[in-house]
């Protein structure tokens, strides 16, 4: 019994330490770490005072305390998954905007380069740039 609690307690403590290390080294941003820190602290508390789990399950009218824990952890994991999906979608939208911006800038750079080579080349070999800036071949 005692060793089981000690094991659970040690595991939770390690989780908390891992999260803090990740936060300190900036490999995890605080907005994602928040929920994990709360969860791991909750688990630590339950590991120290298992009787609280019994009290909670009585309040919530769940017959077996462990089912309350399982149910609660599934709900938390589900919410975290949905949160990550929304974050991913917003990242995709940002990537899309940046991709567009890069493509637009590439075209501008191409035009500027053509303009520059047109201006800097000596007059006797001056020629039309391959891509004339800001006017298509068609309109010439």
């Amino acid at each position, binding site marked *: 019994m005692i060793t089981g609690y000690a094991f659970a307690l040690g595991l939770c403590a390690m989780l908390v330490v891992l999260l803090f290390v990740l936060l300190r080294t900036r490999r995890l941003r605080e907005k994602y770490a928040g929920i994990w820190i709360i969860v791991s602290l909750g688990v630590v508390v339950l590991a120290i005072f298992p009787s609280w789990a019994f009290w909670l399950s009585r309040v919530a009218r769940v017959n077996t305390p462990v089912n309350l824990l399982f149910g609660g952890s599934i709900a938390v994991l589900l919410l975290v998954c949905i949160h990550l999906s929304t974050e991913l979608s917003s990242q995709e939208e940002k*990537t*899309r905007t940046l*991709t*567009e911006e*890069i*493509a*637009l800038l*590439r*075209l501008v750079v191409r035009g500027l380069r053509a303009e520059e080579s047109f201006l800097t080349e000596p007059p006797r070999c001056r020629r039309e740039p391959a*891509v004339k800036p800001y006017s*298509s*071949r*068609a*309109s010439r």
Partner: protein
Amino acid sequence: MPAMLPDRSLLVIVPAWNEEQSVGRVVLELLRVLPYATVLVVNDGSTDRTSAVAREAGARVLDLPVNLGVGGAMRAGYKYAFREGYARTVQHDADGQHDPEAIELLLKAMDQEDADIMIGARFAGVRGYAVRGPRRWTMRMLSIVLSRVAHTRLTDTTSGFKACNRSAIRLFSSNYPAEYLGDTVESIVIAARAGLKVRQVGVTMRVRSAGRPSHSPIKAGVFLLRAVLALAVALSRPTEPLPREVPQ
């Protein structure tokens, strides 16, 4: 603020993904039929020579470094049109399915009906296109719903042949979905909700050089489900107002 080009300035946006076989011919024909237009090929992360072929043919090319899908390519095109001050755009496929000769028809119809968006519809009284079975029912369903949303009769809501005026360019440069059917179905909903006038005109389509509409019942079923989902999401989204004529 870019200097506005003249009222008749036209940008033909050609989204292209690995179309080196056909894009050159399409660009040359567009420039021959519409000598006053600028052709912008949006190379949607192609791994072949699409970009080089298009440039050699005389088009301007937007090179997207990664593949974004038709909706993504088109929004990039609308952004270009918006920033460079074009008055009108036409979306034109790179596979040679659309007929450049029909663009004038599209623009004339847009002027006559004073529309903001003119869709080139494949079924509207002009022969040359047939779809059967469940896919047809899905398209019929989309037409009925979108006709109500846009307060006009639309028969071909999945057509990628569209003309837009400055108001529509402004709207689509910031708000053009990259989802499945987002570039066709959802964009019509967005435009109608923003108070733009959407109309259609019948056009003929050519036989595509590669790729045909599938008649597999499973694919048709998936198409139906995705269309219903796209429509439900589009209709339930909050309306976004038309952005003003001030670029960032």
